[in-house]
Each structure stands twice: as structure tokens, then as C-alpha cells.
């Protein structure tokens, strides 16, 4: 058995808008087993998280518990797993198989395990994955004492499902992907309970919202085209079942300069734009990654997120390096600048405007 033990300390510069504490810390334990032979694979990965301030961040999750049976004609995965769909770096539009572990990282990169059967066919015409997804997991949200929380508290009780089977519904998904020289393409469709809720005012509690999970149909398209060292990327979705049919897209490019100033250091650039029919604004992201290519794999990431309408800016700086052979240390800081002026536009950062923080995380691998 292998695994990770993670200590995470966050320090916020101000008391929160909702009087939340400045110092937060959490511990995560994640054991893992991986076995393989020529006919198949067994994989288990668990996750236990304990937060000292916000009990809503406590988590017990099975991230992976599956077997893969490799047959001549196809490959079948049975069990709980995580599946990633997509090509863009900052926002993942088409990625719908797993519920987001929102309280782990509010960028939506962390996911919860999903029970499934997946059948994969790999042929000359590409890769076809067919999924049956059993049961549904609610999204977790920061509690009232948590930082980076939403402006109104989310009620755990009375979650609404549009499906009569509630969280027991079996959902289906299909995805085809292939590449032709410099073009990567994938088309997917998901029919089932939306991982992303919409919120309704609670009738029982004042100033609280209840998540509603509708049954949706979502078609996704992923495109990536390479021109020399430039990758042009786009993810588009069209969704029905959550009010009017709407579409959303993330598109942009990624470019890496290898060996800047005749050094060993690489500099990567990411620019991504967002469009969502449901939002007035179209936030964009500019990111850079400096990779020093040293023995400790030192890196510095920086990113700006800009809300074009309200002129709000979020800035992130993250640095990470290996410590010895067993550990990885990362330190990140996030700063939100909303300029405090009311320009009559929808604000993205209003509830978290005092949530600038610095975070240190040490991962110990055993």
C-alpha cells in the first residue's frame, strides 16, 4: 500500500465578510493500492479529510475502487472511479462524469468518486467510451464558518431533484475521441442528473438556499489544434433541462517557450476566454508557468482572472518544489481586487473580497 498524507495551512489576511476566522488548517489521508496483470487492473484510492474550522470540509470518499477487465474486443471498468474529459486548462466545461469536490479546491479541479460501468472500444476510427453511472453525489459547499464561501448559506436539508428516483437515478454518457495529425477532437453526450445545481430560496430558513439538481442533456465538443508549439483549444457545451437551453464555451491557447534566455527554464503561457449564456460577463484568464527543470522540479505558477464587465481581478501565485524524495511543498497566495466600486455589474468576488489568503501545503508520500 502506498499513499499520501497532506497538511494544509491557510492564513487569511482579514476576518471574513461573514466573520470567519483567519487561520484554517486541514489534514488529508489518502491510501492507495494498485495491482495489475495482463488481463486487468485493480485500483483503490481513499480520501479522508479533516478541517479544524469548517466541518463542511470534512470528507470520507472512495476516489477509486474499480477493476478493469481487458478483453480482445473491448475494455470494461466496473466500480467507483474518476474520469476526466476536456482539453482546456482553467475551466472544464465538458467534464461531467464526476461531482466536484468544491471545498478541496474552488477551481473545480478536485472530484469525488462516481460508481460506474464503462465499456471502451478502441479502433482505427478512434476511442468510444460508453458509461452507465449509478447514483448521484451532491456537491459539497463551504459551511458558514468556511472561507471562500458563497454569499448565502447552502442548506443541506431539502435538496431537490427533478428526477423521481432522486439521487438513485442511473445516468448515461458516451464519448468519442480521436486525433488526426495535429487535430484532436472529442464529441460527448451526457444524459442524467446535473452535477452543477441551481439554487432556490429556502422556505424553512431565512437567507439560505437549497440546491436543485435537474435532469439535463448536455452535448460537448472538444477541439485542440497544434501549430508548431502552439496549442489552440476549445470546449463547447449545449445543455437543456435547466431552464432554457443554453450554451457555454471556454477557448484559448497554450504556448511553451523551451529554455528561455538560454537557460534550462521553460516558460508556458495560457490564455483562456469564457462565455456562458447565463452570465453577463465573460471572464478571461491569463496564466504563466515557469518550470526550472532542476532536480527538485521547482515551479512558479501565476494567473490573473479578469471579469471584463465588473473590472474585478483575482490574482494567484503558486510555487512548488520537491523536498527530499518523499515530499512536495507548495505555497500559494490569492488576492482579490474588486476595487470596491459599485459599477452596477454582476460581481463574481463580492462574497470573497476579504478572502485573500496565503496557503502552504506539504504532501508526504508513503
Amino acid at each position, binding site marked *: 500500500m502506498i499513499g499520501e498524507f497532506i497538511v494544509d495551512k491557510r492564513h487569511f489576511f482579514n476576518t471574513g465578510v461573514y466573520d470567519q476566522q483567519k487561520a484554517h488548517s486541514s489534514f488529508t489521508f489518502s491510501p492507495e493500492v494498485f495491482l495489475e496483470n495482463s488481463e486487468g487492473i485493480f485500483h483503490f484510492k481513499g480520501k479522508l479529510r479533516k478541517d479544524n474550522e469548517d466541518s463542511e470540509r470534512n470528507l470520507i470518499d472512495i476516489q477509486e475502487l474499480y477493476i478493469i477487465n481487458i478483453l480482445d474486443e473491448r475494455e470494461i471498468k466496473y466500480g467507483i472511479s*474518476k474520469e*476526466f474529459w*476536456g482539453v482546456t486548462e482553467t475551466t472544464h466545461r465538458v467534464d461531467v462524469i464526476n461531482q466536484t469536490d468544491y471545498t478541496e479546491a474552488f477551481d473545480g479541479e478536485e472530484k469525488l468518486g462516481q460508481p460506474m460501468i464503462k465499456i471502451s472500444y478502441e479502433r482505427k476510427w478512434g*476511442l468510444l467510451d460508453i458509461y452507465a453511472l449509478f447514483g448521484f453525489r451532491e456537491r459539497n459547499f463551504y459551511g458558514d464558518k468556511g472561507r471562500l464561501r458563497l454569499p448565502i448559506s447552502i442548506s443541506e436539508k431539502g435538496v431537490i431533484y427533478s428526477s423521481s428516483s432522486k439521487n438513485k437515478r442511473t445516468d448515461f454518457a458516451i464519448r468519442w475521441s480521436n486525433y488526426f495529425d495535429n487535430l484532436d477532437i472529442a464529441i460527448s453526450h451526457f444524459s442524467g442528473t446535473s452535477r452543477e445545481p441551481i439554487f432556490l430560496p429556502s422556505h424553512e430558513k431565512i437567507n439560505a438556499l437549497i440546491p436543485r439538481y435537474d435532469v439535463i442533456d448536455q452535448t460537448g465538443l472538444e477541439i485542440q489544434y*497544434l501549430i508548431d508549439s502552439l496549442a489552440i483549444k476549445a470546449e463547447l457545451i449545449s445543455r437543456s433541462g435547466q431552464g432554457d437551453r443554453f450554451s457555454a464555451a471556454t477557448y484559448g491557447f497554450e504556448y511553451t517557450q*523551451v529554455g528561455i534566455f538560454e537557460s534550462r527554464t521553460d516558460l508556458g503561457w495560457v490564455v483562456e476566454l469564457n462565455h456562458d449564456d447565463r452570465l453577463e460577463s465573460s471572464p478571461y484568464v491569463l496564466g504563466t508557468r515557469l518550470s526550472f527543470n532542476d532536480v527538485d522540479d521547482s515551479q512558479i505558477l501565476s494567473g490573473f482572472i479578469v471579469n471584463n464587465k465588473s473590472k474585478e481581478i483575482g490574482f494567484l501565485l503558486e510555487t512548488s518544489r520537491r523536498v527530499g*524524495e518523499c515530499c512536495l511543498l507548495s505555497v500559494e497566495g490569492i488576492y482579490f481586487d474588486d476595487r470596491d466600486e459599485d459599477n452596477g455589474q454582476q460581481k463574481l468576488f463580492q462574497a470573497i473580497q476579504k478572502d485573500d489568503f496565503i496557503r502552504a501545503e506539504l504532501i508526504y508520500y508513503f
Partner: protein
Amino acid sequence: MKHLLNKGVAYFTYSLLIFTSLDIMANRGEEIAILSDKNNDGFIDSSSSMKMDLINKKGDVVSRKLRFRRLEVPDDGDKSIAIFESPRDVKGVAILSYAHKVEADDQWLYLPALKRVKRIASKNKSGPFLGSEFSFEDFSFQEVEKYKYLFLREENYLDKPCFVVERIPLDPYSGYTKQIVWIDKKNYLVQKIHHYDRKFFHLKTQLFKDYRIYEGFFWQPHEIEMINHQNGKKSVLYFDEVKIKNGFTERDFSQNSLKRSR
């Protein structure tokens, strides 16, 4: 005037001779490279485990471990997968490469924490591999068509009679302007390479040691050393558990197969 004309003719003849001999040298260089490349033809597939020692100026050593699988592709470059085992934070990270004879190779990176297969857009493979003195380029297969050759001379290296051949990478993204290669005359195995950087400086020396033969024809060096003369560091690769004809198929080298590697 006649004198001048004579001189002109002499010059013309002389340059013709030079060009012809350059041509012969180029042909001979390429012939040696082809014979060296043909050496391992017909291995079908191979697997091995590797340890890489990164040694700094002071002599401090850190080690990396990886597994390597390769599939011979007739009429194109080979397919290969490198899976990292240590250090622990990159365990399970894998790189899939489809080498091509002339055009740029295709590469994909698998990130197990995100369960994501990502196409590597950069055609520039001059960057360091896992923080070592080897570049990604040093790990890719040296298809004959990717270089222009010039036979230089014959000389002994470590008491082995060798051909010395200069090769110039045709890939505009290569980090090297030229390489001098020592190939032994008996088995056509690469013994040593001098790598010259973009400013034509002798940047690195690569030594191939401990060649062992498998199934009577497949030669594998069990130690490859890369010395960087600019920063005084060196990296040494040790091969173990070398096996050919494992019965791998194309499917074992697909983007989807990366998701099963750990």
C-alpha cells in the same frame, strides 16, 4: 592569362574533387548510420526498467526510477512509453511517444492525479528530461532520416577500432547544431557522442557502456552516461530487466493505454 586560366581549371578540378569526396564522405557516413540503425531490426518490442542517477558537481547523487516499453513500427518510427516510478510525487506519470522518420514526433503526457492525458504541443525537445542532463531529444529514437551525415575518420576509442561520423540534425527545433558519433567497426554500436550546442560549443559527452546481446542480435547498452561540460553535472542511466518480444500490441501504446499505467 593562360596562367590564370590554368589556375582556374585547376581550382575547378580541385573543388570538383572536394565536392565529390564530400559526397563520398556523406554517403559513407550515412551508410555507417544505416548499418548501425539496422543493428536491432526485428526485435518487435522491448521492455526494461531504468535507474537514473543525477550527480551534481559536488558528487551528490539523487536517483529516479522508470519503466520503459517500446514497439517496433515497420516503415515509421517506433512507439514507446516511459512510466515514472520515483520520485514519489511523479509516480505513475507516463510519456507516450510516436517517433516519425522525418516529421516531428507525437507525444502525450499522462497525469494520474488528474486522470488526464495531455498532448504535448511543444515540438521543442531540447529541454531537460526529469531534471537530468539528458534532454527529451536524447531519449527519442535516432531515425536515420533525421540527420545529415559526414564521415570524418577512423580511430580507436578504448582500444576499439571505430568510425567517427558527424551528423547534423535536420529538425529545426533540435538543441544541437552537430553531433560527433563514434561507432565501433565490429558490431556497429554507438560508443560515444559529442553534442554541440546552438553556439557550436561542445556541451555534452554521452558514453554507451556495457553492451549486452539478447536473442543473438539485440544489443542493449546497460549504462549510458551523459556529462555536461558546461555545468559540471552528469547523469547516468542503468538498464535492467531487459526483455524483447514481450508480445505487446499497438493497443498497449495507445493514448487510452496510458490511463492504465501506474
